[in-house]
Every structure is written in C-alpha cells, then in structure tokens.
C-alpha cells in the first residue's frame, strides 16, 4: 500500500537502477529536498537545476539526443507555459528529420486543482499537452498505474509527458493494487524510502526489491462497469466519478467509468465499446472548457457514433475563466466536483431520445 508519490519514486528507482535512466532533474528535485512532493527523494541520479524551465526542457532534449535517458520535472505545470516552443521541438524533431533523430525523454509535472493552490498551483495541462503532436501523454489515477505507466514512459523511444494529479499524490493504493515487490505494510515502506524530516545528509533509502510492471501506453481501464452512461475521464476526476457512480447505484443508476490513463494515443476501441453499450457519454476533466480535450473526444464520438447516441454527449470541465481562485468557495465553483458529476450522470441516464 503505497501513495502515488511513493509509487513514482519507486518507478524512478527502477528506472535509474535497471532501465538506463541517467538524469532525473528539475528545480529542487535533488538533495536535500527530493522534489516539492518528495517524488525524487533518495535517487542517485537526481540533481537540482537552475530556476529556468526553458533550460530544463532544453537540457532534457539535449540529453536525449546524446543517447541518455533523461527524466525532467517541471515543478508545477503552471510554470511550463514559457516552454511550449521547446515542447513542440521535442515533439517534431523525429518528424522534421524524417526519422533521423528520435527524442526519448520523460517530462513529469504535477497538474490540477484540489489543494487550494490559487492561480498558479491549480492549472491543468491536458488540453495543452494533447495539442502538441509527437508526444505521448499519460496521467494515472492510482499508485499502481503511476508505477506501470512511468516504467512504460521510460522505455518509450519518444517524448512522453507524465501528468501527476496533484490531489492524488498522497492517496494510498487500494488493497489488491499493490506494486509488485513493495512491502505490504505501508509504515514499513515509509521507513524504507521516505526521507526523514530535518537533516538527511546521512540518510540512504532502503529500496524494496521491485518487479517491473508495464502499463501499456494507449490502453484505458474500465474502473467501473455500467450499462447506462459512459463517463470518460482521467486523473483526479476518476475518483470523483467513482464516488458519484456508487451513490447513483443506490438510486438505481448504473454508470460505466473509464479511466483513459493515456490521453495520447488514447484508447478509441475502449470508448467505442462503451458508447455502443450505454449510448450516453459524459466527459469530465478539470481543464478550461473552451478548446478542451474532452471536446475532441465528443467531436469524434459524434462524427463516428452519431446514431448510437440516445442523448447529447456532455462535457463537464473547468470554467472558462483566467484562473482558479484561492478561497474554498472559488476553487469548488471552478472545477468539477462529485456532486456536479453525479447530477450530470443522472441527467444523461434520465434523458429519453
């Protein structure tokens, strides 16, 4: 039973000790802190960069071109918006050189709301990321998926963006969703791999001997089977959608929840299968709602499955406003919450053509 941030740390350990990861870097990624969310504590290839996101992304591209295996972190995705041109270069280099240079790098960054992060610790990045061709984009909702997707990202010969749902980083895995090799007892795991508070100069982690686990990029997961409404979502909203679905089950409404896990490439077959079954679709994500990735999914569903639909597909996303306000009342009103997801599912289920 690990948290998602521990799962990420364990994946990075496997990466640097067995899969050829040469550099794990970013602002405050190295000692003493090991990442603002502790994701990079105790890793032997972790180092601190200057406070320069453009340098971080450029460094990652250069290391990749030199045959290294970099894992770079942008401390919060809110601070990646001055690097979009470089992200585009990482995504277009293999194409522009007609196959001469591939760019195998992993970029990790925390995303989303849920921690009262105000304007600059609440951004989502899924809409922006899915607009950059040449990248693979993944976003886990459980520690086990985080572990397995990160190992797949490290093995991929292309640039892969690993979006970390901020609000889930300290959520523990459910029973039966263990990472192969981790100790069952979470206190024990914490003792082994969490850095102590205070002076850590002498501390060394004691890594469990972990098995490799690869969650394939491009495969969604049906996290709850249902017959009446298909909810297409990812990251933090998966847990909300599940909670909503459980409440609705009591009311006799049966929703299917699909965790996309991979945003690009995404699992179209899984979506088609679900929509053919339920004939009703709800897309949920936290990004602002104009030119949003959920709108792509709805557009394609409408183009290819129009006559399967018994109700207008619906998008539940972030309000189209310039930021997410600090106050509770503001954050709650700005991004989807369980109650809103529940209401939207119920409305779709009740809709008669």
């Amino acid at each position: 039973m690990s948290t998602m941030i521990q799962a990420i740390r364990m994946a990075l350990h496997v990466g640097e000790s067995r899969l050829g990861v040469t550099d794990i870097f970013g602002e405050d990624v190295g000692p003493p802190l090991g990442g603002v969310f502790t994701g990079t504590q105790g890793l032997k290839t972790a180092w601190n960069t200057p406070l320069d996101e453009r340098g971080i992304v450029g460094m990652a591209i250069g290391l990749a071109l030199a045959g290294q295996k970099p894992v770079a972190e942008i401390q919060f995705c809110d601070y990646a918006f001055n690097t979009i041109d470089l992200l585009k270069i990482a995504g277009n280099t293999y194409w522009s050189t007609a196959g001469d240079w591939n760019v195998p790098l992993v970029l990790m960054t925390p995303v989303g709301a849920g921690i009262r992060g105000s304007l600059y610790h609440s951004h989502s990045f899924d809409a922006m990321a899915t607009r950059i061709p040449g990248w693979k984009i993944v976003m886990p909702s459980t520690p086990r998926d985080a572990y397995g997707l990160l190992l797949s990202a490290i093995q991929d010969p292309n640039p892969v963006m690993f979006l970390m749902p901020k609000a889930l980083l300290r959520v523990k895995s459910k029973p039966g969703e263990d990472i192969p090799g981790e100790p069952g007892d979470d206190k024990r795991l914490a003792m082994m791999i969490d850095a102590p508070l205070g002076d850590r100069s002498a501390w060394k982690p004691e890594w469990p001997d972990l098995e490799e686990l690869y969650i394939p990029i491009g495969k969604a997961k049906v996290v709850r089977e249902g017959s009446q409404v298909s909810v297409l979502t990812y990251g933090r909203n998966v847990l909300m959608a599940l909670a909503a679905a459980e409440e609705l089950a009591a009311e006799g409404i049966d929703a299917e929840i699909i965790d996309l896990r991979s945003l690009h490439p995404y699992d179209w077959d899984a979506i088609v299968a679900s929509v053919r079954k339920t004939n009703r679709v709800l897309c949920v994500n936290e990004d602002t709602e104009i030119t949003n990735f959920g709108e792509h999914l709805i557009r394609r569903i409408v183009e290819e499955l129009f006559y399967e639909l018994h109700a207008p597909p619906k998008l539940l996303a972030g309000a189209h406003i310039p930021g997410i306000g600090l106050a509770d009342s503001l954050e709650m009103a700005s991004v989807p919450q369980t109650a809103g997801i529940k209401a939207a599912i119920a409305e779709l289920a009740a809709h008669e053509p």
Partner: protein
Amino acid sequence: MSSSAPASISSAIANRLSPEACLQIYDLMLRARVLEERLITMYKQGDGFFWIGGPGEEAFNVPLGLLVNKGMGVDHDYLHLHYRSAATLLAMGADPVDSLRQMKNVATDPYSKGRNFAGHFSKREWNVVPVSSPIEVQFSIAIGTARAQRAGTGAKGITIVQGGDAGTAEGDFATALVWSSRKGAELPLLMIVTNNRYGISTPFAGQHGYDQISERGRAFGMPVAVVDGNDPEASHAALAKALEYVRTERKPYLLEAMVSRLRGHSSASGANLAKEEIDCLDKFEQKLVERSLITRAQIDNRRDVLTNELAEAGKRVRTEPAPDPSSIFDYVFADKNHVRGES
C-alpha cells in the same frame, strides 16, 4: 556599495541616518515583522492555506518603500515586486489588515478579493503592479512601464523591479538587462536582486558561475552594486544612490542586496525560524540601544502593542465574508480603460 567595491567596505559612518529616520525605519521593520508573524500564525491555525513572505528582508525593503516616489501614473515610480515585499508596502502606508484579509482569502481582500495568495499585492493607486506567482516575469514586464518613462517623455517617475537570486536564471532577467541598456534607447529601470542564497531548497552555491549576480550587469555598461541588506542604513544609502542615478540619467542600474530568509521559503517548508540566519531586526535593535535611541523596555512594549493589534484584527477578519462562488465570473473583461483613468 559603490559599483566597484564590495558592500563590506562601505563606511558605516557615511551611511548613518538621523535618529528620527532610524526610529521611523525601525518601527516599520517591526510592524512588517509582526505582520509576517501574524500571517504565519494564521496559517498554522488554519486561517489560510499558504504563507509566503519576507521576514529577513525588512532592513532593505523598508528603506525601499520610504524612498519610492509614490503615486499613480508615469510621474511616479512603478513597482514590480515579488512575494516578499510586505515591508515595502507597509513603508508606503499600506494597511497590514489588508494582508490578513488576503491571507484569509475573504471577499474584503482589496488586492484580489480572495483569489490570490498572501503577499500578492496590487495597488494601481500607488503604481504597485500586480505581484504574480511566476518567477521573474516581472523583469520582462517592467521594461514596458520603464519605456513609458524613458528620457524624452518628460515623465518624472522611474520603474523599480525586484526579484530573488535563483530567479535570475530565467531568461526574463536577461531580457531586462538587454532591453534596458540598448544604446540610445536606455530605460530608467532599477533592477534589484534580493539574494537570500536559496531558491526554495536549492543553495546558491552550485547554481551560478559568479560570486555576485550583479556582475552580470557590467557587460551591459550599467552601474552595479552589492549591499548588505541586513543593514537598513547601508541599504538606504545604496538605494538612494541607485535611485538618484536612474532618476537623473534615465538609465538602468543593477543593485544586489544580500538578505536573510528567516522563516524558510514558505509554509510549504514549515515556516520555522532559521536560526543560522542573521536577523536584521535584532541587529538594528542592538544598534539603536547602543546609540541609546531606544530602550529594551520600549522595544518589548512596542512589539506587544503591535502584536496585540494584529491579533485583534485577525479575529475581526475571521468574521468577514468568503467570496461568493458566482464571483468567479467577475472581472474577466473590463468595460472601462481604468489604466487610462476611466472609472
């Protein structure tokens, strides 16, 4: 803090300020410190989600606030500050209770109506440009207000931009150096780097190729200086000199102030006291006592009074209303050109 000599040798005597000035600066430093302590207490008591501020920078930021040509428009100084600037705002006359309001993210917060973090000031009435969280962008934006005040425009104000040491690695710092020093198109811009030798957890050592960041200004032909930001009199003198140059020459100047970070980076790192750091307030109190300008008893009494004032204010702020959920849609678009004086 001459452009060639290091801070250390700047003569303490030469920098001495009048007793009145010293006591004014001291009182503002104390007010600023008490405010930061109140904000930290609020955070620890759950009256706010996040704290970041400037305990350890009062000796530099108070003189800055006192030396500003305060007002609205190009005939006054534009201030592009960062999230450690409460002491500067207080020195300019801001109400500390407004900082408590932003901390508590209540609707009465005049800087952002409960939208932004503590220390994210905005006050158009005084040319205090909005503090935004992204590091160093203020250096790319400051060149714009400075251009509106360039030689030939007749504008009497100048532009002051301030940021930390680690942030100078961003390209925006270079942007300010390049754009402000173009021959024949120089900008009246005072660039201030408050160097506390840390970026969150990352020490200065190992991240830079020079001992003083201000060295980077030399290639651009601008005067540079380093000052002991823990000494309010030295800071006052260094700022007065730099401001005098920018106001008269209408050209850029780069000033680096060595300061302390007394409570760590922010509440994210615990906001606990960093004992190894010099406390500019303690130091200045000693000096004032030595100069018999104040007594220990007076100091303790004054601190108690201010602390109680803010404790009381904190209670009142607790009762002020949270922003209305529907207010998230307010102020997306302006229908008046406020910055052009419309209202």
